[in-house]
């Protein structure tokens, strides 16, 4: 489950999930939801795999979202489905999506970067909570 929250010039993402794996997967969805008007227009035609090293969960979240942002900026790739496994030394993830198609995908914003400001990844009674502010 994710939502956006207000931050004056930028935009915050708040994600809640029962497990760390689903927290990271939902963070991927949350990012896509602010880049595209309607992420359900993305067809999961191709898969992309990535491994990221790191033992600090908050930094790992930044690195994961940055990896997606880089794929969008350089390869013009958008993703709809995510599967993430968080391990003690990092994460391995798969994402399914396709190349950006202006005829079907309506862009709503350019995300410049994933910031460290107010960054949190924490366990809660119901699972996990993450907050991250993106630079618009």
């Amino acid at each position: 489950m994710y939502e956006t929250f207000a931050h004056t010039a930028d935009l915050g993402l708040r994600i809640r999930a029962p497990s760390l794996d689903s927290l990271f997967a939902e963070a991927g969805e949350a990012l896509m939801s602010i880049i595209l008007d309607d992420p359900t227009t993305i067809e999961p035609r191709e898969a992309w795999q990535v491994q990221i090293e790191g033992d600090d969960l908050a930094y790992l979240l930044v690195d994961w979202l940055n990896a997606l942002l880089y794929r969008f900026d350089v390869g013009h790739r958008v993703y709809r489905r995510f599967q993430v496994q968080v391990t003690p030394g990092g994460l391995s993830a798969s994402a399914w999506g396709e190349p950006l198609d202006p005829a079907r995908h309506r862009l709503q914003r350019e995300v410049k970067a994933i910031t460290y400001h107010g960054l949190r990844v924490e366990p809660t009674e119901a699972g996990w909570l993450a907050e991250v502010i993106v630079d618009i």
Partner: protein
Amino acid sequence: MAKDVFQGPLEQVDETCWRIPKSYKPGMRVDGLIFTDETLLPQIKKDQAPEQVANVAFLPGIQYASLAMPDIHWGYGFCIGGVCATDPEEGGVISPGGVGYDINCGVRLMRSNLRLRDVQPHLRSLVDELFRQIPTGAGKSGQYAFHGKELHQLLAEGPRCLVGRGLATPRDIEFTEAHGRLEGADPDLVSERALARGSEQCGTLGSGNHFLEVQVVDEIFDDEAARVMGLEKDMVCVMIHSGSRGLGYQVCDDALHMLRKVPEKYGIVLPDRQLACAPVNSPEGQRYIGAMRAAANFAWCNRQLLMHQAREVFQRIFGRSWQELGMQLVYDVCHNIAKFEEHTVGGKKRRLWVHRKGATRAFPPNHPEIPEAYRKIGQPVIIPGDMGRASWVLVGRPGSMQKTFGTTCHGAGRAMSRTAAVQAAGGRRIDKELEAQGVIARAQSYRGLAEEQPKAYKNVDEVVEVVHKADLSHKVARMRPIGVIKG
């Protein structure tokens, strides 16, 4: 993270300056000083921007005060509108957060010989054509691609390397801050990822608050300065607001990644991770500086190519060359940058690293870094406002050297968050509303327009009033938009 009202101390110093004393938080090395007035102050207290001014005062080697301009708003780490100068001789640091992700985000203004009456009949086709020709929004590649050696050259030399290709003129370079080139740029310190993000984005506008506007000189406040800059009432101009695109964002991100454990290594205690920094005289500090300067040079190339494309569109629409149309660059100035400059602190001349995060250099008359033609009037400062009201041209004043390390404001500053702005729009078509006011606006996204609507910003006239009164910079001309393209 709650958007709490600032509860800390704000003591009035004079008509345009308020102080957060360094006793506010243990760890503050200097006071915080916010340039504002009674009208803007309540807005500033509404969020945590003043807290961020206090946090910046923790940085090692900071001189005089952690400063904020009247367009201050809540950023990440540093506030937007923040200025911080550090002395490397006193362990001073360099902080990528004090520059921002969009390294050398800035503004340029181009004049023309056209009057409002010449452009009005063609305005719609002009704006449509600008929107067709100039790549805007996310995920767009431009018509120019620079790879390998060519890209390295852009990063090392800035727009002067575009002169040979007919994409810039020596006059354009003359009227660009620092001649569009920061010495010491090291393209080898720019990562492959950053190069890949930048290679096809030079000459693209981007999204968010970036824009290209067709504007009209609405009112002149300083006849002599306006004459020297070639500005007259009713003249049509083009203002461009953009930065270093994905290349710069990646350079900042790479630096923040590199700096994750560096503050600890040098025993630096910080109240916010986004303030990550390294001593200027450390290998990590030098690495960031070399890459940041390269990204700044790239940003100047980006704005140069955006201007070149705008000139081509004007040529097509008006059937005359851009030279005949008098489309000359007035000035290009950056507002997200760190530069090594000479300033006087406590009666002593020192070389300091001045971080300007959403703040504009405003050197006074006779400063050697101002182009010869402008030396008597002071450095032109270009202040983009919102797309419904106004933008401004100012000139730097001596007060800036005495109070703000040669700096003034950079824009209107946001008054509403993006989320609140979309709610306030309530599904209304902002482009239709603007059209009713005589502004033709084209954007990739209606939501983007709603987030950037005039009401989302403070009134730029009020911001300018403060810097004028504080003698940081003086009013020269007020510009009003008639055509806008955005991402």
